[in-house]
């Protein structure tokens, strides 16, 4: 019992310290029974597929009804030369309340960014001229840098196998959904339903 109480306190403390780095990239009710952290890289094709297909279903079926609290974690991989820069641009846009629009834009233009590296220009298309200036300042700020470093550290600590990976937390237990060629929604749904039945 004591162990459980200590574990609950530790988890709460971790969540609180982590909340400093969440701005615009979390969705749903923070008190939802299940927390899903999506570790994703804007330059990863599997992440684009997940974003374009499964994520909207996950949002509709679980996040909107308040069953899941979803956090997007920035996890740019070293193998993608523009992954970090793109994450910085989106994290800066997220600070301005435009995470959704920015992430949609960079995933839609993933091939173009991979070829040219022009992530900021793509994010610029969803921002007003004033916001564009703010984004450039934010990209160089410690807020964005620390947010990405925090998410990278979280992912490494959880030993996530790659991107996209979902870290599902339910009643102090964490499940890693990754290392699959394709993260099929059918199984994600089956798992969430199974947990919610318990």
């Amino acid at each position: 019992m004591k162990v459980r109480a200590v574990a609950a306190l530790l988890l709460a403390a971790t969540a609180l310290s982590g909340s400093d780095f969440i701005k615009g990239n979390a969705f749903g009710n923070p008190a939802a029974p299940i927390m899903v952290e999506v570790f994703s890289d804007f330059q990863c094709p599997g992440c684009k597929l997940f974003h374009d297909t499964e994520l909207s279903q996950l949002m509709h079926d679980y996040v909107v009804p308040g069953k899941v609290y979803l956090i997007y974690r920035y996890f740019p991989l070293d193998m993608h030369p523009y992954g970090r820069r793109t994450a910085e641009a989106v994290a800066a846009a997220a600070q301005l309340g435009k995470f959704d629009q920015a992430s949609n834009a960079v995933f839609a233009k993933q091939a173009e960014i991979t070829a040219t590296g022009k992530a900021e220009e793509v994010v610029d298309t969803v921002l007003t001229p004033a916001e564009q200036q703010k984004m450039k300042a934010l990209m160089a700020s410690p807020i964005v840098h620390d947010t990405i470093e925090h998410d990278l550290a979280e992912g490494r600590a959880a030993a996530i196998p790659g991107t996209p990976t979902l870290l599902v937390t339910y009643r102090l237990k964490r499940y890693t959904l990754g290392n699959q060629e394709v993260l099929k929604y059918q199984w994600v749904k089956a798992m969430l339903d199974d947990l919610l039945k318990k």
Partner: protein
Amino acid sequence: MTFSKSKALRIVTIVLRVLVGLVFLVAAYAKLKDPWALFAMSIDSYGILPLRWVEFTARTLPWFEAVLGVALIAGVFQRVTTGIGTLLMVAFIGAMAWAKLHGKEIDCGCFGPGEAISVWTVLRDASIGAALLFVTLMSYWKPRPSSV
């Protein structure tokens, strides 16, 4: 004190059978403690079974492994259990080799999630398969009565 060859073989056989039985029990527990969909994801990522069989396998295989583990430890229906165990290991090794040959970077799903297919996982399953094959062959072997 003399220790006959057949006695030594019998002891080795029992030890191997119990050890492999324990491995099956651990593998079953590792899968059953998590939601079944996690194991279904691992099976599906191999891309070998059709979807309706993936769910059936994910829900039943861990229980089958548990029953097989208990039967191996208890030593009941030895020829059947060791034979089925050997075939199961051949299927596991075949699936892993197939995935590796097709360049799939996926979880093996052997002891729950989080272990990628590697040479080590193939060798480990091959060792278990070899041990089971040995135990199966031994269950058919009748030592010759020693001459007086």
